[in-house]
């Protein structure tokens, strides 16, 4: 057994796991950590742009499938959140790393199913689609692209086994940045919760094409594109 491996016991089973003690292992581990932070930041950016720009600035109210895709992105992001938290605490075992990547994959699969459903709803020639297109693609199509990227990301990390087992930073500034990203992600969930409460009010379900914030009875005027 090399110096970069330790033996642990899972129940009665002896398992040999690598420990990131070498320079190369540490470098890949840190890269793995910041890749998870980048994953979280990317979805924070996507979710914030959808809500603050398209919903609030342009006045385009999200349909039920749009809201479901936001949930899919958050569900998928629970994976990197799990890995980042355990890395920051120094308790990330290979099994935890796999659990986090599993969360990301399963969440992305559900999100992709929702995106594909919405793409199929508007796939007929002549259908204008729902909402504003960005670079020629509607938001639900971009959502599918993002879910496929997540699947590819998790797949590539799994191909390398534990090479990219995330190692949390030791510098106080880097740890502060990482914790800030974690809490900004939580704030993004809270902001979406409040926005959808205003949109849905006390109804059980959203209408197929929402036109007003049910809670306060306000109909926003869509901005001219």
């Amino acid at each position: 057994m090399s110096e970069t491996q330790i033996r642990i016991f899972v129940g009665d089973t002896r398992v040999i796991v690598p420990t990131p003690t070498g320079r190369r292992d540490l470098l890949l581990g840190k890269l793995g950590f910041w890749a998870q932070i980048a994953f979280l930041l990317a979805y924070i950016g996507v979710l914030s742009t959808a809500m603050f720009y398209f919903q609030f600035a342009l006045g385009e109210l999200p349909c039920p499938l749009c809201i479901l895709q936001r949930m899919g992105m958050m569900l998928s992001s629970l994976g990197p959140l799990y890995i980042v938290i355990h890395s920051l605490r120094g308790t990330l075992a290979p099994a935890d790393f796999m659990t986090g990547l599993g969360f990301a994959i399963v969440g992305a699969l559900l999100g992709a199913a929702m995106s594909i459903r919405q793409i199929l709803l508007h796939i007929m020639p002549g259908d204008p689609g729902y909402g504003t297109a960005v670079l020629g693609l509607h938001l639900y199509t971009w959502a599918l692209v993002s879910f496929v990227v997540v699947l590819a990301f998790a797949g590539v990390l799994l191909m390398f086994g534990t090479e990219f087992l995330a190692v949390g930073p030791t510098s106080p500034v880097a740890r502060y940045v990482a914790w800030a990203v974690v809490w900004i992600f939580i704030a993004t969930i809270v902001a979406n919760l409040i926005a959808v409460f205003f949109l849905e009010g006390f109804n059980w379900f959203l209408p197929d094409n929402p036109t007003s914030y049910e809670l306060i009875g306000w109909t926003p005027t869509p901005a001219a594109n």
Partner: protein
Amino acid sequence: MDTLLFGALLAAALFIIFARKRWIAATGFAVCFIAIALLFAHHVTSTLELSF
């Protein structure tokens, strides 16, 4: 329902941050996954007029 599901996602994320056991995080994730999948199924009302 959507508001409640965002609440469930918030709870699952907070479980991940504050609870150290993996089964608690996995349970939170699984509950959210099933609830969101059921809401998705509720909104899928037809097979569309497409040929698969």
